[in-house]
């Protein structure tokens, strides 16, 4: 069954993967047995639209699935049963009239309530114009009562015009008019409710609420599942997963961040309490380079979601001082009387090593079909070279969604599904790699530096108006953050 799926015009790369993930969550692929290959939805574009358009058609097994997806999504403005479309109001009329009566009449019955909303993209319509358009729909035999608040049925007349793309929309869309019945839409109230401005305990790299929800959706967070963030910081990513009912667990190397916060009512726990969410089932201080899990433990997390410590903004640390890992000095033996309060020194953690540790942890600790969802930094000038994302024999990459942070840097949200078991061979290879990293620590550090500025504060990297680098920007400006 095809539905018209209208997106908010934001985070363009994140839109379809979100719908795909939620389709999995709500069982859209239940009848398809494709073995390990994750199934994909069928998509179509309206006439003359290109893939960045807010308008798409998507094929879903039922209205129930479409509603569940739309209501839980962050980026779906509305999912509609399309009754007709055209390039003019005459064409629209013919199209609606030829849509089968048995699909329409049940929603037009006397005794029901309904509302028609006019939505225009690319031009502002006065109330009078809207009224006129609604009156123009008199060829549809509405028998119900108009009710503006909570009607039984919501109808939408959506017009989109070609207007040169100067207010953020892709430029090549041509006039198209849709009429449809709403099946569901995102609850955008979530975002003001959870916005970071209202969060009691914040850190410099707290994940904004919209992105945290998107990550939770990519991770298929749901009741009865256990979701882990090995770089939990203030817990803002887990807050998103907890909102969708998942049990959460987090670790961080920084004891002040994860344990102390800013006092008894301003810490990771309070960030959950604030929204009436269940507390994480576990919070601990640990180094993801030396995970504290017992050796027999595996396949316990349903998802791992995180924003790893890349670069300078929240540079990663790992146990063992810098000189020590280089092998230059004998380990400092902590005197027994100092042990309890001792703050172990930590060494910088390179991008490559950090990603290696994360993939190894996920390969071992995720259930089969479990998801690893994490950010990965890329340099945007790398256009000639295909961006190479990390890979691992246990994982299949199912989506990569770019968010432009500045003219030079992007971060890409990667979603990987665990499709292979963590075998002895893989474990051994990972152990060898771990040792190699220790040997080559300094070399890796230098290689890793390539990406070191990626996660420095976004604002300081925004180009000045008229910055020539920005004008040469190879990617269209309506993408990602610039929407």
């Amino acid at each position, binding site marked *: 069954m095809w539905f018209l799926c209208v997106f908010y015009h934001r985070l363009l790369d994140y839109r379809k993967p979100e719908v795909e993930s939620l389709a999995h969550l709500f069982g859209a692929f239940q009848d398809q047995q494709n073995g390990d290959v994750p199934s994909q939805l069928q998509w179509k574009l309206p006439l003359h639209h290109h893939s960045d358009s807010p308008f798409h058609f998507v094929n879903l097994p039922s209205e129930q699935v479409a509603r569940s997806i739309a209501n839980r999504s962050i980026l779906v403005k509305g999912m509609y049963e399309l009754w007709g479309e055209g390039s003019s109001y005459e064409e629209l009329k013919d199209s609606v009239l030829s849509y089968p009566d048995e699909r329409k009449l049940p929603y037009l019955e006397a005794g029901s309530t309904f509302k028609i909303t006019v939505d225009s993209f690319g031009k502002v319509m006065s109330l009078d114009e809207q009224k006129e358009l609604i009156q123009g729909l008199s060829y549809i035999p509405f028998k119900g009562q108009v009710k503006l608040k909570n009607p039984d049925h919501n109808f939408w007349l959506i017009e989109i015009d070609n207007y040169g793309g100067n207010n953020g929309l892709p430029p090549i869309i041509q006039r198209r008019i849709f009429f449809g019945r709403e099946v569901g839409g995102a609850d955008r109230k979530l975002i003001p409710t959870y916005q970071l401005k209202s969060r009691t305990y914040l850190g410099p790299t707290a994940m904004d609420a919209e992105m945290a929800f998107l990550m939770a959706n990519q991770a298929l967070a749901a009741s009865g599942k256990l979701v882990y963030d090995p770089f939990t910081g203030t817990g803002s990513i887990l807050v998103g997963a907890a909102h969708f009912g998942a*049990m959460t667990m987090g670790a961080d190397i920084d004891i002040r961040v994860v*344990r102390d916060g800013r006092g008894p009512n301003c810490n990771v726990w309070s960030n959950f309490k604030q929204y009436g969410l*269940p507390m994480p089932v576990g*919070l601990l201080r640990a*180094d993801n380079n*030396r995970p504290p*899990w017992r050796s027999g433990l595996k396949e316990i997390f349903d998802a791992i979601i995180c924003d790893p410590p890349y670069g300078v903004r929240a540079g990663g640390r790992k*146990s063992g001082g810098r000189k020590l890992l280089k092998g230059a000095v004998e380990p400092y033996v902590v005197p027994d009387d100092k042990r309890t309060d001792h703050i172990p020194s930590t060494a910088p953690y390179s991008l490559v090593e950090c990603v290696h540790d994360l993939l190894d942890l996920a390969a071992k600790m995720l259930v089969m079909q479990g998801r690893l969802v994490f950010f990965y930094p890329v340099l945007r000038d790398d256009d000639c070279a295909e961006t190479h994302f990390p890979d691992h024999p246990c994982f299949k990459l199912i989506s990569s969604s770019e968010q432009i942070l500045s003219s030079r840097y992007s971060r890409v949200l990667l979603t990987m599904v665990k499709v292979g078991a963590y075998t002895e061979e893989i474990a051994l290879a990972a152990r060898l790699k771990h040792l190699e990293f220790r040997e080559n620590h300094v070399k890796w550090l230098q290689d890793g530096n390539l990406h070191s500025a990626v996660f420095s504060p976004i604002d300081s990297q925004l180009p000045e108006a008229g910055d020539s680098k920005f004008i040469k920007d190879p990617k269209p400006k309506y993408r990602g953050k610039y929407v």
Partner: protein
Amino acid sequence: MRLLTHNMLSSNIKGVEKGFPLRIEAEKVVEKPVEMNADFLKKMFEKVEWKAFVEASRSMGYSNLPEEVDPAMLESDEFLSRFHHALLELHLEEGALVCPETGRRFPVNKGIPNMLLHEDEV
């Protein structure tokens, strides 16, 4: 720290062969009610090292868990609620986790176990 977390942790100090289970030194234990989720409990049941779990719950002052278990018990509401209570409702607020091999103490403050290793332990 709840016993679910305890059951997952071990002392991974360099050279230690058997760092699990960590012995619990309980200074302050609190109980916090949590809504029960049977599906979650059933999944966790398969992962938990039962002997260590029973021992740990005893050191937190709760001795109502059977020594031996089999999956059929998951059908019993009585068993599920005890398992739930021990796994998720008992919190170690203050205390320590002690490495069974070396005696190294991993402190637990404000409910957070500090599992970071010292320089000479990695």
